[in-house]
């Protein structure tokens, strides 16, 4: 049966392949060229060739399994050392093609490895706290009181939302200053985050491994600054957000 090679990412050549299974449980090998090694595992051509793969990608369970396996190998590589993730579904016909890519893209890959050396990615998500009840439950005794109350409510709401905005901006700014790199994704939809609270920050930060505790402490401190902002940390992740070259 013909095989293709699914490539997960690049590590320094001296760093061996991680001891985890890859896509569909296949063993992961290091394909070396010069100072670089691509982590790759065989996948059957009959299901991973162009048109067949395309069909498979329409099956969301299959895509989810590929995403998790891809991440699983990269995560294990990150635990062992440095890694530059490839985009998902980077597939080569032969080991020679992988080596050719390593040789051809050597400068670009080596500089990406250099940028993330000793670093991991942390995700920080911020959620808006439940809005405070604004006014007393008593019915207004007059039209004027009603209008006054409504105005107070509006002002308080506006004030708390602008306070929240500046708390989010401050949190991101402080985290970015601490980190070697920072990027923002669009906040996740409430149904996706599986939280009732609205997501107001979806940041990723590139942080030196040995500063992980200090970074977590900073996140906790920032969460303490503002009662209306809850922060949640995910990771460590392979440095997904920090390996693409800045667009010219």
């Amino acid at each position, binding site marked *: 049966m013909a095989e293709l090679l699914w490539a997960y990412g690049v590590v320094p050549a001296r760093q061996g392949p991680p001891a985890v299974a890859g896509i569909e449980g296949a063993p992961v090998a290091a394909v070396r060229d010069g100072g670089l090694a691509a982590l790759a595992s065989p996948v059957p051509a009959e299901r991973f060739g162009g048109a067949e*793969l395309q069909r498979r990608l329409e099956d969301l369970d299959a895509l989810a399994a590929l*995403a998790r396996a891809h991440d699983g190998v990269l995560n294990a590589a990150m635990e062992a050392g440095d890694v530059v993730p490839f985009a998902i579904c980077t597939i080569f016909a032969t080991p020679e093609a992988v080596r050719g890519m390593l040789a051809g893209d050597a400068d670009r890959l080596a500089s990406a490895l250099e940028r993330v050396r000793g670093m991991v990615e942390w995700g920080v998500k911020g959620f808006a706290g439940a809005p405070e009840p604004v006014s007393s439950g008593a019915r207004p005794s007059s039209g004027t009181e009603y209008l006054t109350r409504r105005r107070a409510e509006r002002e308080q709401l506006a004030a708390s939302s602008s306070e929240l905005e500046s708390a989010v901006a401050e949190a991101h700014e402080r985290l970015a200053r601490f980190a070697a790199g920072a990027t923002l994704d669009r906040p996740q939809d409430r149904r*996706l985050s599986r939280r009732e609270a609205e997501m107001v920050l979806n940041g990723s930060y590139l942080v030196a491994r040995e500063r992980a505790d200090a970074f977590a402490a900073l996140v906790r401190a920032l969460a303490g600054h503002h009662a209306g902002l*809850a922060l949640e*940390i995910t990771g*460590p992740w392979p440095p997904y957000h920090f390996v693409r070259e800045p667009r010219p």
Partner: protein
Amino acid sequence: MTMTREDIARQREVALVDLVDRLLAGGVVIGGDITLSIADVDLVYVGLRALITSVATADELGLSLPAAGGAPFR
């Protein structure tokens, strides 16, 4: 930083939506000898976005999905 077994277990349970955020935003794109054409690569991203949507749909239908892996801080 050393990873404990617990850390590794937690990593395995990462929320798919957090992972897809990263896969959509990240990873080096290789040209040249790969077996996928650019159009196919775009399809991968269409699929990933659909995956996000399907997570939302599953949630609406009350299907159980792994919970988010993050530790809450207040």
